[in-house]
């Protein structure tokens, strides 16, 4: 059963068509990779899903944690998050002046209640809520091995650690689907390997459905169940990693067509 369905999504910026009738299905529990050359429209897909871009045409349907189907079209980003869509960004977008703990507590925002008054008075109920959600956050901290960084200000952390914190924040939301936008960008081989392991752990141990974009083909081929290849806003190939790797259209898209080979 698909947890997320994109149907005929078309996204234009003025005269540029970023996505052209793009259709994609994310199955429950799979680790799906989205690859393609620069400007292929990968991040646009994620931005449409999380509500940062509005596609001109097409539908996006999510099967939420409640088992009901929700149309994400025209919903604002915070409502989409509340339905269980969490993501990370290509350029890490953390709350720099807050501690790791506070960043992760924001991941619990949609699950918590409490406004200005109950917070300011910090009466019994709000205090219990904070503690209860602190417990969930500590679980994620434990899972991601972030204990030593718990009370560090995020802006002061090393780059690789910031990536982990961003993923931990998304995990704290307890997502139905997790979107990772280039989680290994700017990392060295060792850090990439460690990140790949974290993604696999998240996927296998916590059973989260993951959609990952990455430029590192080796990482993608190693970890993903299924790969979708995009070029110029269209799907050009889909299948298991080893099938896609040998697909002629994919090789063309990445390497260009040999001269005289034009059909």
């Amino acid at each position: 059963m698909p947890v997320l369905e994109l149907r005929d999504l078309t996204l234009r910026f003025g005269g540029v068509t970023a996505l052209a009738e793009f259709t994609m299905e994310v199955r429950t529990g799979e680790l799906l990779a989205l690859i393609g050359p620069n400007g292929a429209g990968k991040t646009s897909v994620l931005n449409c899903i999380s509500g940062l871009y509005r596609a001109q045409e097409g539908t996006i349907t999510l099967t939420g944690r409640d088992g009901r189907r929700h149309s994400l079209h025209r919903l604002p980003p915070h409502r989409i998050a509340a339905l269980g869509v969490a993501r990370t960004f290509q350029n890490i977008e953390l709350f720099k002046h807050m501690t790791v703990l506070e960043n992760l507590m924001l991941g619990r925002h949609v699950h918590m209640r409490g406004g200005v008054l109950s917070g300011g008075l910090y009466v019994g109920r709000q205090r219990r809520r904070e503690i209860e959600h602190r417990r969930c956050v500590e679980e994620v901290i434990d899972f991601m091995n972030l204990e030593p960084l718990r009370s560090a200000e995020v802006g002061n952390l090393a780059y690789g650690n910031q990536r982990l914190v961003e993923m931990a924040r998304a995990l704290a939301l307890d997502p139905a689907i997790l979107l990772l936008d280039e989680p290994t960008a700017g990392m060295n081989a060792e850090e990439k390997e460690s990140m790949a392991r974290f993604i696999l752990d998240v996927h296998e141990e916590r059973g989260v459905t993951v959609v990952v974009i990455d430029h590192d083909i080796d990482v993608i081929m190693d970890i993903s169940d299924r790969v979708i290849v995009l070029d110029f806003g269209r799907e050009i190939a889909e299948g298991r990693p080893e099938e896609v790797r040998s697909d002629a259209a994919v090789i063309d898209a990445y390497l260009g067509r040999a001269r005289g080979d034009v059909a």
Partner: protein
Amino acid sequence: MSFECGVFHTRYESDMGLRPRPLQRIRLAVFAAFVLVFPFLAGPYWLDLANQVAIATVGAIGLNILVGYTGQISLGQGAFMAIGAYTAGLLTLNLGLPWGVSIAVACVVTSLAGTFFGLPSLRLKGLYLAIATLAAQEIVEWGMTHWTAVTGGTEAIVLPAPSLFGVRLNTSFSFYWFGVLMAAGTALFAANLFRTRMGRAFVAVRDQDIAASVIGVNLFRTKLLAFATSSFFVGLAGAMIAYYRTIITWERFTLETSIVYLAMIIVGGLGSIRGSFFGAVLITLLPAMITNTGRALQDTAPVVANLLPYAQQAVFGVVIILFLIFEPKGLSKLWGNVKDYFHVWPFAYRRG
């Protein structure tokens, strides 16, 4: 016994306390003792300054909630204080409401007005928003001086002295207790707010609004709530001034007021409650200190003494510039540095 290091919490509740370490509690107790003893030792001049500090603390925390914590620059501080002051005063004068009720209503009215003038923040950021709030300042200033039928125009409004159980509340001694209570209450409320859900959302909007929306923070609601919460306390500060002075004049609530309050939170520390207090102390005492220095030098160096009153504005400006250059995080950071030094004192790490 360990005060600062080696304190381990075994429960989330104690770890999440406002002052989890023993040394912090000792410092607070010392400060509280000082606050309680101060009015019995100080003369009316110093008490009056202390009352101004209390009012400024409430106003500065209010402004800091919006500017320092939520990152929405406001030049409308004077306007919101005016709305608080005039609402409280006019309710008592025209409807005969008791001062306590008037102040409470004034806070709510200011809160609503702040929310209204906060609407542009949904589209505007940074300097553009500052200009939009400047418009609020100008509109309210114009209203104060021109809506003569209600505000009395440029004439001052005189209020009856507030009293509680037969005790006049606007003497510097009795107002002191009211001021301290309000300032402490505001500080506690704000401190609690920023360790809970909504307060975190405010800070998230400041640090990274797109990430905030994607993690589930409703930007529209959160920004307006920040304006509402901030204006509530700013209105309280305005209403406190009205009842302390029992005279309301428009000159107290001009654009200059807005800028002085911005200076307070910049010098004190943006996004810091203790910084709001430090800033309120410094900016309130600075003019008094300059005047006192002038008096002291009257006999020995009359030339300097005669010049000092003119230097007041300049000194004010120089202080702000020095802070921006040398300690943009304000007095709050300086205090933090002192604490860090003593954190491991006397066994500090030394770099060879």
